[in-house]
């Protein structure tokens, strides 16, 4: 099925199998492996991408559903070789251990900051409650988002 969409500011027109999930399109077809699959059921948030400025679990989206939409993945945050403020903040605050949850965490936070540039800690915690981390204990992640929001 032919669809058009924008991904990381680049326009695409592709023939996509109707059963293909968005996460599989990104990772397997487009080789954008920054987005991770944790649970495949929308529980862990590792697969979070931004669709039309909203954080969404890419494991729960059929790829054809992004037709005429704008998608951003973790790879799309960097500009001209410069890391996004959130990415830098995650590094500065030791918010990355194994790194598996990190792309999803950053994309959730990015979507939050696009909508609310100065969230409270409560708002950060509520917004990112759908992103699980088994390593860090979340404190450094919250601090990273706070730093990026200043």
């Amino acid at each position, binding site marked *: *099925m032919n669809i058009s969409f924008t991904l990381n500011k680049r326009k695409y027109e592709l023939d996509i*199998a*109707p*059963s293909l*999930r968005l996460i599989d399109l990104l990772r397997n077809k487009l080789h954008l492996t920054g987005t991770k699959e944790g649970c*495949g*059921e*929308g*529980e862990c*948030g590792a697969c*979070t991408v931004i*669709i039309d400025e*909203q*954080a*969404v*679990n890419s*494991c*729960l*989206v*059929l790829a*054809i*559903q992004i*037709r*005429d939409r704008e998608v951003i993945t973790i790879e799309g945050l960097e500009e001209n070789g410069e890391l996004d403020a959130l990415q830098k903040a995650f590094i500065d605050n030791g918010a990355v251990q194994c790194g598996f949850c990190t792309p999803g965490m950053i994309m*959730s936070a990015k*979507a939050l900051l696009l909508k609310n540039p100065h969230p409270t800690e409560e708002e950060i915690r*509520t*917004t*990112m*409650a*759908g*992103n699980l981390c088994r390593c860090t204990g979340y404190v450094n992640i919250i601090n990273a988002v706070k730093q990026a929001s200043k």
Partner: protein
Amino acid sequence: MRKFEVAMPSDMDELKYYLKNACSDTLLISGGTDLMIKIKNHPEVDYKIIDISGVKELDYIMAEEGYIKIGARTTFTKIAENGLVLKYGTCLAEASSQVGSNQIRNWGTIGGNIGNSSPAGDLLPALCALNARVTIMDGHGNVEGIPVQDIITGIGKNVVGHGRVITEVSFLIRDDSYISAFGKIGSRSQVTIARLNMGIALKYNCFHNLIEEANVALGALGPKVIVSERISTILNSRKADNKLKEEFSAALREEVDNAIPGRVSQMYKRNAIKGLAYDVWDKLFKERIVSTKGEM
């Protein structure tokens, strides 16, 4: 090899066309946050799907002809943040804000929540408390309005039927004397499936601290939402004081006992509902003006 066919209507006319030609096993996908999990867990099944995510005409919230009208494609996030819903359907806004995670709320829709017909569906008790109606359309454009409490017939089952789609949910706009609240208990404080949930809508005279009408709906207590006329009767024409709060809590416990006698979860739920009762009561009354000092 599995067959997986998807139709992608881009407007209502195309949607009607695909509905007219739908088979008895054709499924509808709106956001897909429920269906995609089923698809993943059943890779052996053939699927015929109509994807309505591109039908923008079904994505709206408006006040019209004395009703708040919400298109079936409207996401939980949009409902939770909408000024009209917050004002005239507070319990629905609260329910929408507590569905799943932020990511789920950004993609899942009210039509999908009703169509999935889960016993723990968070929007269902809130919609029942508001006496909301669901509009269903077939492939010829014929529409039917059904009260939300009559939509669900069992676990994952409803009256929508093949070749039809939920297009809208609506509820009456009432004056400021009408208040509502939603509460939910799950295994976690957030991102949790409800083990109990409740929607309550009242006509409340804040000058006399008097409940003049009540509508109470309980979810996650059986295949369908329980709309408790008994509890409504207990609350009607009563002062919202601590005595009534305790009667309300006790009556909810009885509803649990009546709904799930002998079930493994009965003991937990008959105690947990007390906490839910208190939470919802405080949401409704804690900050409202009372006429008699100390009654709250």
